[in-house]
């Protein structure tokens, strides 16, 4: 008896382990909290569209960015908002401290940025504050932020200049453990303040109750492209609190306040939030009486939309779109180009830290002229050899498509569609390789390098999602057709964390890798492709690249036309040099119940939730 029960348990245990393994591999890659400009694994599928072409393919051009109004909005009503996430929201409901995107989705209803943006993510004068930029004689710049008079916190206190200054003081404090420091490190006097040598930040000057002058050391055009920290923190609430205690305080987690169109009413940690209208909102009282937000797992979001349980989602999983778009007749799908791209990178050198004791500190990229991928012809041929449009059609129903340049169309002013990027042409790939001396000398069908040695290229790609493996295999086969032997490093896909550990460490086994970047809201490329950027994973550097990137971030580039021209040149340079090549651009889908009005997914909409209404009390059903 005892024995029987043991083996039974063993069996059960093995079953459980099997399930654990299965489940882990299933979602190990899902979102790792991208807050704007983070990396993005680039493996989950995406899809979307309204009128399917006959071949079942969609195109982002078929989607609207503004919700069609199905009628007049009624007075009041409650909107059910679905936060699509397979993780809970952490509940750090403060712009200074939050890290995960789910928290931002909760925040955006009750707190907003002081400055509004346009579709290129440049600041406009339409926000809760107006701004003015003055270039000083000593090369510094001063941004004057004037908060409108009628902007008040939910508790009735006015939003003051000292609240914004307070946010700078918190972020700049040595006790601050969040990740926002990059916004403020260029403020005059911040280094001294952060080191504890100064009690105040000399670059901040409170001119009057509603006006703050912020002086920056350098005139960087990124400042005007969403690069200014413009989220105040209510000083009257937080001033007596230790910074280290703030993220766990009730003022952040239980009853946070902001100055947005809705007030937080209740929070059920991790799962739902209810909001009520803020009648005192500076742009006028919202149309809705309230909003109920809840976390919805991506696997069930289509059902929740169909039954009207939720009216609106922050993003609809594009891989589900082709299956449900006909069924969801009560839902309108909106779509836009996502701020991310997938790419293939070539390892061209190494990261050399300034201080060998501290390999993760400052340092610079040192290209290695003898790297396996150092020949640009080889790289160009590899670009010609892959058919990314087919990848987009086969795996994403056309909702991803071949990329051309490294500045994506989500930046309409900067994206250059005239750049002639290689597109699929196997003959051209073969021709380039033949000319460059990559010939098959031993007759095994595989090209050797110009020295006649065997050429095996190690390819690193991440696991996760259903499409990761077939796509990696497709690329390997496509290159094989051009006679190149490409093998997965270790013969398998890598888990997210090991992938980045090894790509960052310039692992010798990795010659090429498939990654993805979220582009954030600024076209400045120094952080990804600059000589001193640790995230320049391809380890490419050249003088021309240095010059263009420096010019793009120089005071002259405050002139948008000049900046556009610089980045046009840079896009061309990248297509010539090919340290990496973009494989897929992506679309982002949002779905809204027919009853929702005046909603939009354009950046220039600026989260105007006070305008959103519903046409009837109950959701429209199919």
């Amino acid at each position, binding site marked *: 008896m005892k024995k029987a029960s043991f083996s039974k348990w063993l069996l059960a245990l093995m079953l459980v382990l099997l399930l654990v393994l299965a489940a882990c591999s299933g979602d190990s890659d899902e979102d790792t909290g991208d807050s704007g400009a983070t990396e993005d694994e680039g493996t989950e599928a995406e899809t979307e569209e309204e009128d399917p072409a006959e071949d079942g393919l969609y195109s982002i051009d078929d989607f609207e960015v503004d919700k069609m109004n199905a009628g007049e909005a009624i007075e009041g009503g409650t909107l059910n908002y679905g936060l699509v996430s397979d*993780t809970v929201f952490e509940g*750090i409901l403060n712009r200074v401290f939050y890290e995960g995107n789910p928290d931002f989705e909760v925040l955006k209803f009750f707190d907003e940025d002081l400055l509004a943006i346009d579709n290129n993510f440049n600041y406009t004068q339409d926000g809760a504050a107006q701004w003015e930029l003055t270039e000083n004689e000593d090369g510094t710049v001063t941004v004057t932020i004037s908060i409108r008079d009628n902007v008040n916190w939910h508790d009735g206190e006015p939003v003051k200049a000292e609240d914004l200054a307070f946010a700078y003081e918190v972020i700049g404090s040595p006790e601050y453990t969040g990740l926002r420091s*990059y916004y403020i490190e260029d403020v005059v006097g911040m280094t001294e303040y952060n080191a504890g040598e100064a009690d105040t930040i000399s670059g901040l000057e409170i001119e009057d109750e509603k006006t703050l002058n912020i002086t920056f050391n350098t005139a960087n055009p990124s400042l005007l492209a969403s690069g200014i920290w413009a989220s105040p923190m209510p000083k009257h609430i937080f001033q007596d609190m230790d910074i280290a205690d703030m993220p766990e305080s009730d003022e952040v987690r239980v009853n946070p306040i902001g100055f947005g169109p809705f007030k937080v009413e209740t929070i059920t940690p991790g*799962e739902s939030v209810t909001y009520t209208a803020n009648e005192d909102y500076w742009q006028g009282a919202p149309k809705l009486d309230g909003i109920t937000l809840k976390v919805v797992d991506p696997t069930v979001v289509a059902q929740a939309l169909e039954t009207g349980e939720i009216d609106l989602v922050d993003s609809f999983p594009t891989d589900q779109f082709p299956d449900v778009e006909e069924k969801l007749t009560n839902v309108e799908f909106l779509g836009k180009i996502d701020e991310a791209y997938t790419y293939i990178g070539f390892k061209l050198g190494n990261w050399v830290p300034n201080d060998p004791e501290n390999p993760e500190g400052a340092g610079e990229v040192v290209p290695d002229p003898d790297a396996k991928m150092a020949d640009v012809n080889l790289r160009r041929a590899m670009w010609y050899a892959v058919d990314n449009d087919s990848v987009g059609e086969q795996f994403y129903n056309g909702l991803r498509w071949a990329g051309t340049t490294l500045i994506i169309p989500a930046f309409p002013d900067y994206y250059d569609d005239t750049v002639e990027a290689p597109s699929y042409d196997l003959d051209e790939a073969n021709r380039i390789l033949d000319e460059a001396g990559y010939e098959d000398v031993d007759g095994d069908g595989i090209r050797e390098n110009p020295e006649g040695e065997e050429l095996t290229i190690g390819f690193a790609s991440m696991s996760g999602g259903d499409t990761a493996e077939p796509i990696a295999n497709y690329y390997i086969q496509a290159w094989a057709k051009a006679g190149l032997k490409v093998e997965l490093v270790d013969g398998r896909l890598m888990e997210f*964390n090991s992938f980045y550990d090894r790509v960052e460490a310039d692992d010798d086994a990795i010659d090429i890798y498939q990654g993805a970047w979220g582009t954030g809201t600024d076209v400045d490329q120094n*952080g990804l492709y600059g000589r001193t950027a640790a995230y320049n994973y391809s380890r490419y550097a050249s003088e021309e690249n240095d010059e263009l990137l420096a010019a793009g971030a120089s005071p002259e580039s405050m002139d948008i036309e000049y900046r556009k021209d610089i980045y046009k040149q840079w896009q061309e340079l990248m297509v010539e040099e090919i340290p990496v090549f973009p494989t897929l651009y992506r679309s982002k889908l949002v779905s809204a119940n027919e009853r929702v009005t005046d909603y939009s997914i354009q950046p220039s909409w600026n989260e105007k939730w006070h305008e959103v209404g519903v046409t009837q009390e109950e959701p429209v059903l199919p």
Partner: protein
Amino acid sequence: MWKFIIRRLIITFPQLIVLSVLIFLMAQAMPGDALTGQVDPNVSPAIKEQLREKLGLNDPWHIKYADWVGGVVQGDFGDSFRFKMPVTDLLEQRIINSFWLAVVTLIFTYIIAVPLGLLSGRYNDTILDSSITGYTYIGFATPLFIFALIMLWIFGYQLGWFPTSGSVSPGLEPGSLEYIISKFNHLLLPAISMALIQTVSTVQYLRSEIVDTKQKEFIVTARAKGASEARVYNKHILRNSLLPIAAFFGYEITMLITGTIFVEQIFGYPGMGQLFLESINLRDYSVVNAIVLLFGSAAILGALLSDIILSIIDPRIRIK
């Protein structure tokens, strides 16, 4: 009796210590840490390095272990990097949800298992028995996470009988009657889904026990004395067959914990299991360590409980 329990308790201590070291080392061996996922061009590796230093992520493992154990002994599991709050507070929020889910699941498990097992054992090799056994085989073969999804789809979305996610309806006042009813309503469907799958081993077990006991000589004796069929089953057979089931109880708790990991994920039910999976993926070590330690302790205590129950009802197996 007490001697046995105390002796058994003493053994659990080294088990817990070994467990804690193992957990800690395994967590350390995972590639990456809480900051690896922050692949953000704005957050340079140098800043990440400073943060690692601040958070003590760079210390050698034995120092980290000593810190951790020092805290754990005082009930302090450290701070969650991801949630920016003490792990104990975080677990407190979640463990209540998981606890009630487990209790309700356990009740359903036995409500289903005992009658089915009894019927199946009593009328073995009839059509009734075959169908019950058939159900248990299907149950064994069905992955819980698929089954839970199907249940959610049918009863949650198609029929609309149950809420489909979360642990409570948004906006209710905690403590009010409405709140409690809503909580219960939210955990019914996950609990039933889990119980329907979890129960099959108990049904099988009970069935074979009864079939086994039926042949025993003391049953023949009871029948020979003229005891009625009902009396034979309820008094003699059921009692003896339940013994091993009772002993199962402790293990059942362990099973429940592993089961909730999937169910919580699917039903968006914020409990320990959901927290566990997310924390592993995002390398929130302090939370992972705390949860594995709790799960591990629960398993050890569950085994202890089973042994104790067994020793109470069956003195033969007490350890000498």
